[in-house]
């Protein structure tokens, strides 16, 4: 601590240069934290899913429906405890600029199968009792100011027309991986209105034991192999993960961008440190004359680099953490639970330490190895 004053004075020597270098590091680590949080959120979302839930879709693709008659046959499969089904609706509200997911679900079985969605009992009962009712995520209340009892009209994009529902309940996810800005309404109402006579988008199947998942999935697909709508069954986790992979190798892309940004900032910081030490050869010589050892001078210069990078990390990582926490950002529902993870902060701090070493080690060595006589002769 006794050298803190000297360290602080040196960092304040060129206030703008130091501030801009810190801002560069902060921005780089803010971007790093943001990009990595996209990955961790996607990963968390893709990892979500009970080991005891399977998803059955049309083998042609999950946008192709299957007959509702499959529900009874699925229920009859050995090891299956319950079955629910839903359809993607794709309705828009207002000018449609703010996207949110909306589904038609078989409400009684759906809510029973997803305890991760908390709905107050009275609202749950009201929703189940009203065929034209809707269940909305808590964020939609914030976004649109909707209230329980309010009529809400969606404009159908896949299923044309205006669809009016009465908000009967507000759900709150107990798991970050579940989006809190979706809307659910009754499949029976949807089916009635579309006149499509019994088509389900996909089925979710609760099974008795997780270890039976593969056998049950095989049995289900074998059962519908020769039907007009053959199926493809997998775990809920694999189903969720397939959405993440729809974006291609996003992990590689984001990591590459993150690495490039950090490397660019390494050059900026290293340049600032080199300039700083080059200007101060005489001062290092004076400090050595006073009695500062090579090692102490090395540590002082490295600590200066550390001051810049760690302060940058504090601002960048702290800023990202606070921004995403208090803005409740979720990328329009695509990245539910978008929060900077503690591992990301730890990794970012590690990068800042590496930046400190990479940008500070050469100037620190240069200062430590400086010949006092040569440095003084050049200025005396």
């Amino acid at each position, binding site marked *: 601590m006794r050298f803190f*004053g*000297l360290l602080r004075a040196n960092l304040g020597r060129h206030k703008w240069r130091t501030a801009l270098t810190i801002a560069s590091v902060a921005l780089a680590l803010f971007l790093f934290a943001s990009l990595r949080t996209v990955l961790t959120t996607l990963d968390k979302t893709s990892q979500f899913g009970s080991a005891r839930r399977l998803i059955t879709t049309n083998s042609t693709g999950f946008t192709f429906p299957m007959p509702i008659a499959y529900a009874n046959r699925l229920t009859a499969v050995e090891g299956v405890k319950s079955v629910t089904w839903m359809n993607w609706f794709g309705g828009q509200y207002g000018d449609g600029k703010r996207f949110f997911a909306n589904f038609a679900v078989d409400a009684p079985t759906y809510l029973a199968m997803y305890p991760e969605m908390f709905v107050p009992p009275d609202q749950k009962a009201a929703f189940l009792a009203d065929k034209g009712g809707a269940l909305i995520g808590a964020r939609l209340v914030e976004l649109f100011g909707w209230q329980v009892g309010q009529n809400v009209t969606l404009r159908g994009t896949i299923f044309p027309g205006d669809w009016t529902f009465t908000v009967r309940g507000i759900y709150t996810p107990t798991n970050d991986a579940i989006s809190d800005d979706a809307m659910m309404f009754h499949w029976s109402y949807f089916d009635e209105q579309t006149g499509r006579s019994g088509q389900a988008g996909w089925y979710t199947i609760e099974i008795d034991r997780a270890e039976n998942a593969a056998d049950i999935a095989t049995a289900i697909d074998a059962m519908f192999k020769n039907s007009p709508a053959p199926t493809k069954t997998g775990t809920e986790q694999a189903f969720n993960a397939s959405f993440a992979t729809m974006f291609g190798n996003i992990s590689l892309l984001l990591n590459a961008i993150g690495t490039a940004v950090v490397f660019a900032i390494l050059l900026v910081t290293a340049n600032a440190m080199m300039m700083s030490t080059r200007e101060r050869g005489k001062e290092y010589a004076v400090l*050595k004359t*006073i*009695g500062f050892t090579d090692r*102490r001078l090395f540590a002082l210069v490295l600590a200066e680099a550390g001051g810049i990078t760690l302060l940058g990390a504090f601002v960048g990582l702290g800023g990202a953490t606070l921004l995403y926490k208090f803005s409740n950002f979720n990328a329009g529902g695509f990245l539910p639970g978008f929060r900077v993870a503690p591992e990301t902060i730890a990794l970012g701090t590690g990068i800042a330490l590496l930046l400190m070493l990479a940008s500070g080690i050469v100037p620190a060595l240069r200062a430590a190895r400086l010949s*006092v*006589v040569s440095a003084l002769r050049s200025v*005396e």
Partner: protein
Amino acid sequence: MALVEIRDVSKSFQRDAERIDVFSGLTMDVEKGTFTALMGPSGSGKSTLLNLVAGLDKPTSGRVKVNDAEVSSMSAGALANWRAENVGFVFQSFNLLPVLTAYQNVELPLLLTRLSKKERDERVKVALGVVGLDDRMSHYPRQLSGGQEQRVAIARAIVADPTLVMLDEPTGQLDAKSSHEVLALLGRLNKEFGKTILMVTHDAQAAQRATSVLHLDKGVFVEQVGAAR
């Protein structure tokens, strides 16, 4: 009693293919409590000698002892620690750290000691008081005159109570009035505080303040006046 013993010291530099001998077999003593001025023309080796005594440079051969410590054979780390305890150094161009106040500049050598903050504070104030700048403690070097800067540098050199104070052309960048003040201060340090002072100077008037004067020319002592041998 000799505080500084220089025995048969040679120092040479290599400049490209040419070997330049600064000294060859130089021997001298500086008595404890003396104020010695080292004079001579440019290139005579005055500053090199000062650097050798301060352990900032190594002799090509021979021995340099200060207060019984053989500085010519110490490692770099040991030399730094030794300098912190035994040597106060003043440069021609003051060489204060511009980002530190007068107080902080003077405190620098004490950061290397085990003194508490309170003890450091007392010592810094005493040192600045001795040089007559206790009212300029919070000033930065740019806010001080050349003479004041040099007095701060002297305060920095004496604050750790070193055995030996060495000065390289301390009045070289000062006007007559400031030179006079600095030299008077050095005289006080020698007489009142018993500091051993070794000063390199071109200035004959400055040298008059010393208790002994050594003239160096081409690496050889050509004349000496006073207590140095």
